[in-house]
């Protein structure tokens, strides 16, 4: 199409093409932008009657508690007071977009402690730290070990070591701050005296739903947090891809080049391809029964093995191997090379593009697979990330922004795969059976 003579319709076509392309891309990307935005919003904004597009900056609350004139107490006493000043009012104002609460404890001109709790920690801890609105000293006492063990609130104890101003008496009169002050004065829960309460915005806390994912997972299930599930998924993908690249390729090569009998060839090809038409839902129970016989239930191999049989891979490879120059292979054979050697030394080096495309095409569905891993795994240790994502939204504590955040995170590996392999994919497509 590299003509020098400008035609009449050409410009019009070019302009239309750009417009159409851009429109399609915008249509495709807009829902994702919405996904990204909701992952940064608080849950009430996501559900707002009039949709909001710009996430609100989470509010940061800084509280100073003054213990001047009171007898000295041990660290735990102050920890409890700080936690009471953090978790209780936050629970009472759970619909507010609070990003963090920082408490500073001062006594006679010294800073005793500082504590900080982020919304990531709060939303993870809320179901077990403040599951209801019973706010009293006993309850917090009972919760302290759990807060400490899970490290949900940062608490730094300075003892008498740090000079500090007592609160400067600033009590913010923003609505949320007013609510908090009323909460403190009505409930009389604290030992320290509220000397300042400041409110500002902290945009860093916009990303707390992402941090929640990690805290949530590491809370008690597995050591690496959400990454553990990603690693599991990657492991599954890697093993399946290796299998397909080795045995899928070998089988297809044999089918394409080594089986001479036309009838056998057709039968074997159909043997592989017919399986594409088996509905996944329908073999769920037999597959589970099989895994039980193999003693693989709740084992990562139970997720991996069924992926080994995928007719589409054979189809892709065969399309490519069918186009290999016969002369080349013949020449190798004449030279006395074994079929295996021919395959390894001659065929494989020529097949890198198709290997890439098979790898990517295998990666996508395996990465997204959900129903089967869900059914066959029991312990979080063996979960893939799709199962973990499901747990997120189905659990006792579903939050829209967590779901969005996990959606965004789950896109990253595939996106990287695409960016890294686009060139090879495009090259590969030219050789595979799909193109014809």
């Amino acid at each position, binding site marked *: 199409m590299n003509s020098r003579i400008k035609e009449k319709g050409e410009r019009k076509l070019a302009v239309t093409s750009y417009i159409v392309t851009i429109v399609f891309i915008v249509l495709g990307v807009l829902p994702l932008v919405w996904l990204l935005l909701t992952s940064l919003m608080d849950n009430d904004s996501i559900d707002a009657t009039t949709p909001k597009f710009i996430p609100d900056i989470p509010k940061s609350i800084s509280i100073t508690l003054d213990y001047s004139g009171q007898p000295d107490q041990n660290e735990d006493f102050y920890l409890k007071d700080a936690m009471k000043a953090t978790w209780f009012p936050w629970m009472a104002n759970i619909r507010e977009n609070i990003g963090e609460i920082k408490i500073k404890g001062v006594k006679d001109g010294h800073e005793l402690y500082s504590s900080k709790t982020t919304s990531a920690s709060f939303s993870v801890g809320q179901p*077990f730290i403040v*599951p209801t609105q019973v706010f009293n000293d006993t309850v917090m006492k009972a919760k302290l070990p759990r807060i400490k063990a899970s490290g949900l609130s940062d608490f730094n104890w300075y003892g008498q070591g740090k000079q500090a101003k007592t609160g400067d008496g600033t009590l913010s009169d923003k609505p949320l701050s007013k609510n908090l002050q009323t909460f403190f004065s009505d409930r009389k829960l604290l030992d320290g005296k509220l000397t300042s309460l400041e409110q500002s915005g902290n945009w860093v806390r916009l990303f707390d739903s992402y941090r929640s994912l990690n805290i949530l997972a590491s809370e008690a299930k597995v050591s690496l947090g959400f990454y553990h599930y990603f690693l599991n998924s990657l492991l599954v993908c890697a093993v399946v891809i290796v299998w397909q690249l080795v045995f899928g390729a070998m089988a297809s090569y044999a089918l394409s080049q080594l089986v001479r009998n036309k009838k056998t060839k057709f039968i074997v090809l159909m043997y592989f391809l017919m399986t594409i038409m088996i509905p996944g839902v329908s073999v769920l*129970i037999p597959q589970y029964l099989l895994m039980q016989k193999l003693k693989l239930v709740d084992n990562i191999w139970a997720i991996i093995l069924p992926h080994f049989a995928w*007719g589409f891979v054979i189809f892709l490879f065969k399309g490519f191997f069918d186009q290999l120059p016969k002369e080349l292979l013949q020449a190798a054979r004449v030279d006395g090379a074994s079929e295996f050697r021919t395959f390894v030394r001659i065929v494989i080096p020529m097949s890198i593009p198709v290997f890439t495309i098979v790898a990517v095409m295998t990666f996508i569905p395996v990465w997204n697979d959900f129903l089967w891993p869900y059914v066959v795994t029991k312990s979080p240790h063996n979960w893939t990330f799709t199962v973990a994502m499901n747990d997120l939204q189905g659990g006792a504590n579903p939050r829209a922004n967590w779901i969005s955040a996990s959606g965004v995170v789950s896109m990253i590996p595939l996106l990287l795969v695409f960016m890294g392999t686009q060139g090879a994919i495009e090259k590969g497509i030219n050789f595979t059976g799909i193109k014809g």
Partner: protein
Amino acid sequence: MKKHGGINKPASVLVAATIVAGLLSACGSEKEDNAAGANNAATQTNDAAANANAGTDASTNAAANAGDNAADPVVEITVWDQPSPDDPGKSFIEEQFAKFDADHPNIKVKHVEAWQPDVREKFLTAVAGGEGPDLSSAAFPDMQVYIPKGIAADITDMVNNSPDKDRFIDGAFNLASKDGKIYGIPNDMYTSGLIYNKKLFANAGIAAPPKTWEEFAADAQAVQAKNPGVTGFDILGMDWADWHFEYYVWQAGGDLTEQLPDGTAKLDFTSDAAVKALQYYKDLKWKYKVTQKNVVQDIGENEKDFYSGRSAMIIGTSDSFTNFVGRGMDPADIGFAPFPAGPSGKAPAQVGGSFSMLNPKSSPEQQKAAFEYAMYFMSKDYNDALGQFKVDNGLGVRPFTVLKDFDVTQYIKDVPQDYLDAVNESAKDQHLEYFLKSSLSSYLVKPIQKVLLDQNADPATELKKAQELAQKEVIDKYNADLKSGANK
């Protein structure tokens, strides 16, 4: 190549959660707040015939079991009761696990995580594979399915020989009994009612919750008018729609199904009461316009609307209080009321709950151990300790118990008295869910959704269609099986 083949289906984040929703077309789930409908004790008698074989097997097992002795080597049992990591009672439960282990050196308990919201599919698959747990729990409607399927073991002798039997309230075992045999140990119970937002009501100048259908519609309209953006009543139109709808049929003076004296089932979808109830549903949506627009949202979303103040009324259970407070609702705003009475002048509440059940495939020793384990968690000591723990930790306590000797009221500290009074009032007239619900649910959901979505749909016609289909696909078969079973 987005849609290549059907094998490695791009999978889903949420499939599972929803799978469970439909799993047994019943409403119960492991979550307390979602625990749902009860079944009809009498119904179970009938499911029997079709699955007579399974039943017999189970009873043989149990019989062998009763004569067993405790002086055995260590028995290992698997129990699906490991609490979720964010369970507020985790530390307590684990402490109790350890205590049980210490007290029972000859019983080794393997706790399996079973807190996922959609654990039922896993349960069924495990049962199918012969790997069902030795002890698990099931909501009332699930029991109705599990008993005839032979999934729950016959524990009649164990229960009858147990000194604890009389500690349960009268009739507690009825819902897990069939043909005089017992299949489950009662766990807990709840009752249903109308939950309303007192603040939104006050804004509209309404002091008391509605007592009749007319008042209900008028109140909903008034609340909507005075609270912009608020929905009067969140109706349940998703796949459990029949669960709440049956209440309206009761209020209209009928039921959806009945069991004839010979044990056969008869559908009453086209009865006057059912038609009136569906007409009322239709009116709420189209005439009074007091429901949410998204009538196909599930119960979780309805609850969310309620606790975030977007809807003024919702149907809930006695346990809802804790749930809503836990989601940040002001305890003072949550009101409970018996259902508004319909044309019949009555408004029965529904009773629901769950049972522990044993696995008929377990060895007699395992069944015995599992029974002992289950009873440990129904002991007075355990329940008192749990009540105290909940009080100390600011957790909600359910206002009902299945035990006579456990006084739950001493642990209810934070639920307003008027809420408790209303719950007790509501519990005075209790009903079990309609007969054969588990098989008929999907047939009823259809006409309900139809009138909620199509202004021109006629309730009587839609119900007639549903009845004809259900008659052909379920009832004829059921009755025939029953008769052939009886002839055997």
